[in-house]
């Protein structure tokens, strides 16, 4: 309760009321109907007024931060067209509210920060749900799929029957489905409020953004336990974390993957562990840490890394302890309690249906970690506590036993570590080489540092600077928190270099480690008064670099975190997915693995492969179907193999006539992925030898090089003639084709020329016969040309099939991808002399549906001998209305 004097003081504080009023303006902005320039002037004027009043009241230092935020808001309203500006104003309005409360001494700094950062972080990461109701992109549909199963059936599935038929589906009894369970639970509760599973799916990761911010703050405080300025440094670390683009790739609304939830619980385990260690409270480790650890394992795979880096930290501090004569067994004791009890807890959840508790052995990375920790702590204990008490013979015996144990056990354990950290990081399988997130993050150190800055902003450089600081704290001040931070940052720093997939898990140590630089700077400035302005400015720079002013001073754009939403690809598939949803339950679809989760999660249909890339042989079969089979007969052999599998148990037990592999689905993006499919189709999965590097080439309309209004030229006889020129620029290809130029004459005659890599023009017929190539299109030739001209200035609103051609040469002319996707309009290209292929309409694949103007097309499989019958489905109207042409 406020006493009377304080209340009176507050009521007489006009600055506070101005701040509180201004903090509400952005939130109510849409209802106030005031233009942004006026708002900008309002904020600037209020900033000046508050500065004046603060100076007059001798409270300028106290009010400096809220006044800065007011001026920042003024700038944001002025520059409202910048990416995400409309969301920044609300976020900074929220910040202003809590900062103002603190400045007025209504609330202490720590509660103001914790509650404020929670609300702001939730808001920032919930923005995608304001933009769209689609679950984002591809992988989040996996959790969405299982959440639906749990929500609808009330049970956790033990087996995935919908994918990988040659393996008889996938055993899921040991899969950590904690996140789908959580989504389903909240979906059930939300049904009481007129919402349901979709809302729960959309929001769960956004909320985790806020919860992680809170836990991360307390974790940082514990890692910097008993250090002066730890709170301020922790605040900086959390600020950097919530504005890290790398972290936000997974932590945002509409992404329902388990990473955000798992990341939050990793922070929680570490926080509880550090809290227990710092106070040497075994009860907290044993009960609290183990409960959260057990829950973590049922939720996310990242727990193994947690064990690895905690054990490395224990080993590190133990070796320091040997030199500096302090014991470290308590660290091992606490983590061992968490690990062992936690292992029991997760094992009674994740187990096969026939067992009460899972008895699967510990993973090598855990064994390796603990052996290292035991070894280091053992040496520490022995030298500090027991050495003086044992005889020389006993000492030799102990050394011998330790050496034998190390020789026998350690290499075996570390093979697993090597597999995870080296082989897995430098992934070399044929399939994984084609996957972007399996690709290296960088190829050179310079490239790495540049990419880090783009992903994590200034935190990346600060974290690199933090390494010597952490080492200093470990060696000079016996700091276990610094050891944990260093052993977390080091492996992630190294792993990320080799694998882009680690960008999310690496974002945590990268963001948090940067706070050690702030801690160090703030500690130093108290001692070196004269130089303190330099580090202070550095810290201020770092803070401002994460504000909307960042784009003015660096290439880091934190506004990007608002736009992690479903893209064109996902929306382009919606009508096709709804179409398949209405197909019989025992329908299977052949398509590339990218769409596997969509077809199983949204349409609930069988697919051969999905985004898990679980069986590389089945992935290769599908790749061969699309990008190796040059005849329908060869393609049908692959299809028949799967159809036969679907007619046998267990599928024959599930449905009276088994599962029917009835459809092929192709979308536009498979043109771009044709290189990956060809690589896999021709690769060797036994010795992982690379396949062929080649793909289809896309040639897209380039209005800037075209003359669509026409111009006068002279013909061969010297007569004036009006002609239009349409230029299509091609993506890189082995043939050296850089573009195609179409000339449309006054008499509607059509001429085509190829442009080679040196800019020379070659008549298309000569190019075609020289390179044994063809030009294709999903749409008819004239449609592509006319739509290109008609919508030249708004191509972004037009489906790609209307302004792109596809070029292929050699065998690429005859693969099933071309035979199916381009078959409908191939005659128009043949007639115009642009295509030279012998095939026409396919025999075993009947054109079924076209969705979103050819973005997705489907074919019904016609088996040579009648093995299955599937009821005919009605044609679906395009209901999504995603692709609307603008008015001309």
């Amino acid at each position, binding site marked *: 309760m406020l006493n009377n004097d304080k209340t009176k003081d507050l009521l007489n504080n006009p600055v506070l009321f101005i701040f509180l009023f201004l903090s509400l303006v952005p939130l109510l902005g849409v209802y106030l109907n005031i233009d942004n320039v006026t708002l900008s002037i309002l904020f600037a004027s209020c900033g000046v007024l508050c500065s004046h009043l603060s100076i007059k009241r001798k409270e300028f230092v106290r009010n400096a931060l809220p006044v800065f935020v007011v001026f920042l808001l003024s700038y944001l309203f002025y520059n409202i067209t910048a990416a995400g500006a409309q969301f920044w104003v609300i976020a900074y309005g929220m910040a202003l509210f809590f900062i103002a409360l603190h400045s007025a001494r209504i609330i202490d700094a*720590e*509660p103001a920060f*914790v509650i404020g950062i*929670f609300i702001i972080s*939730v808001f920032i990461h*919930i923005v995608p749900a*304001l933009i769209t*109701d689609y679950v984002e992109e591809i992988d989040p549909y996996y959790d969405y799929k299982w959440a639906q199963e*749990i*929500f609808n*059936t*009330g*049970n*956790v599935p033990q087996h995935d029957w919908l994918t990988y038929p040659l393996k008889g589906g996938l055993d899921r009894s040991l899969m950590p*489905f*904690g996140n789908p*369970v*959580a989504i*389903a*639970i*909240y979906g*059930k*509760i*939300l*049904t*009481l*409020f007129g*919402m349901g599973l979709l*809302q*729960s799916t*959309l*929001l769960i990761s956004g*909320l985790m953004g806020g*919860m992680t911010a*809170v*836990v991360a703050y*307390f974790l940082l405080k514990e890692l910097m336990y008993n250090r002066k300025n730890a709170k301020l440094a922790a605040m900086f670390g959390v600020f950097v974390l919530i504005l890290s683009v790398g972290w936000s790739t997974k932590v945002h609304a509409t992404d329902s993957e388990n990473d955000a*939830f798992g990341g*939050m*619980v990793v*922070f*929680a385990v570490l*926080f*509880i562990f550090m*809290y227990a260690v710092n106070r040497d409270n075994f*009860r*907290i480790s044993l*009960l*609290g840490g183990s*409960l*959260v650890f*057990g*829950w973590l394992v*049922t939720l996310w795979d990242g727990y193994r890394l947690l064990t690895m880096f905690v054990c490395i930290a224990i080993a590190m501090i133990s070796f320091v302890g040997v030199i500096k004569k302090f014991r470290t067994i308590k660290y091992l004791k606490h983590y061992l309690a968490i690990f062992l009890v936690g292992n029991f*807890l997760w094992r*009674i*959840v*994740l*187990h096969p249906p026939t067992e*009460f508790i899972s008895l699967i052995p510990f993973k090598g990375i855990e064994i390796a970690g603990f052996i290292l920790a035991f070894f280091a702590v053992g040496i520490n204990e022995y030298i500090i506590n027991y050495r003086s008490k044992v005889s020389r013979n006993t000492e030799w015996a102990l050394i011998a036993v330790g050496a034998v144990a190390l020789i026998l056990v350690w290499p075996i354990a570390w093979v697993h570590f090597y597999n995870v950290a080296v082989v897995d990081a430098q992934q070399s399988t044929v399939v994984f080489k084609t996957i972007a997130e399996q690709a290296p993050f960088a190829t050179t150190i310079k490239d790495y540092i540049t990419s880090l800055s783009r992903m994590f902003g200034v935190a990346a450089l600060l974290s690199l600077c933090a390494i010597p600081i952490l080492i200093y704290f470990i060696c000079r001040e016996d700091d276990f928190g610094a050891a944990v931070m260093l052993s977390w940052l080091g492996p992630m720093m190294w792993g990320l270099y080799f694998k882009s997939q680690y960008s999310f898990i690496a974002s945590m140590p990268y963001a948090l480690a940067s706070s050690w630089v702030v801690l160090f700077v703030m500690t130093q400035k108290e001692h070196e008064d004269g130089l303190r302005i330099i580090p202070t400015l550095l810290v201020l720079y770092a803070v401002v670099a994460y504000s909307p002013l960042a784009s003015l001073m660096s290439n880091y754009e934190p506004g990007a975190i608002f736009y992690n939403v479903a893209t064109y690809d996902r929306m382009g598939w919606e009508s096709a997915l709804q179409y398949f949803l209405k197909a019989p339950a025992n329908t299977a679809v052949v398509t590339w693995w990218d769409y596997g989760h969509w077809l199983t999660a949204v349409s609930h249909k069988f697919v051969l492969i999905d985004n898990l890339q679980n069986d590389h042989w089945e992935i290769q079969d599908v790749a061969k179907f699309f990008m190796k089979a040059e005849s329908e007969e060869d393609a049908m052999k692959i299809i028949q193999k799967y159809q036969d599998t679907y007619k046998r148990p267990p599928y024959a037990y599930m449905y009276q006539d088994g599962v029917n592999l009835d459809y092929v689905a192709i979308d536009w993006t498979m043109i771009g992925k044709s290189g990956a499919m060809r690589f896999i189709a021709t690769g060797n999965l036994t010795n992982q030898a690379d396949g062929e590097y080649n793909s289809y080439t896309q040639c897209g309309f380039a209005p800037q090089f075209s003359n669509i209004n026409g111009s006068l030229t002279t013909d061969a006889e010297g007569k004036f003639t009006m002609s239009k020129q349409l230029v299509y620029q091609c993506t890189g290809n082995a043939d050296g084709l850089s573009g195609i130029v179409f000339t449309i004459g006054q008499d509607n005659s059509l001429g085509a020329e190829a442009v080679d890599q040196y800019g020379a023009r070659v008549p298309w017929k000569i190019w075609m016969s020289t390179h044994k190539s063809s030009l294709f299109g999903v749409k008819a030739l004239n449609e592509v040309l006319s739509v290109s001209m008609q919508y030249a200035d708004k191509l972004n609103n037009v489906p790609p099939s209307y302004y792109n051609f596809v070029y292929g040469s050699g065998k690429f002319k005859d693969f099933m991808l071309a035979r199916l996707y381009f078959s409908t309009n191939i005659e128009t290209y043949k007639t115009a002399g642009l295509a030279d292929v012998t095939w026409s309409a396919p025999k075993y694949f009947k054109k079924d549906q076209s969705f979103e103007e050819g973005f997705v097309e489907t074919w019904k499989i016609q088996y040579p001998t009648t093995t299955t019958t599937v009821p005919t489905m009605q044609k679906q109207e395009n209901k999504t209305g995603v692709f609307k042409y603008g008015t001309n």
Partner: protein
Amino acid sequence: MEPISILIALLVIFLPMLATGFVISTFIVRECSLIERFGFSVAFGSCFIYFIYFALKNNISSLNLEVIFGVIGGIILVYIIKYGFGKRFFEWLFAKRRE
């Protein structure tokens, strides 16, 4: 989603976590500041899902609202018994007996 729906949904998701996290942390971490208690509540908050997951996976029950509210309510009830009505009741009961 509409902003108001998002707000309601977030509260519906977060409050059960906060409540159960508060109870669990109260039993495990006895002495801490109020703001640290908030931190612990968030850190422990999602653990109640573990208990439901355990029940589902071991066929003790299937997922429905009764089970969800049973687990959340059960956790909160333990707290009430320990620190609220129950504690006073037992104090009163034992006091009477001593008389």
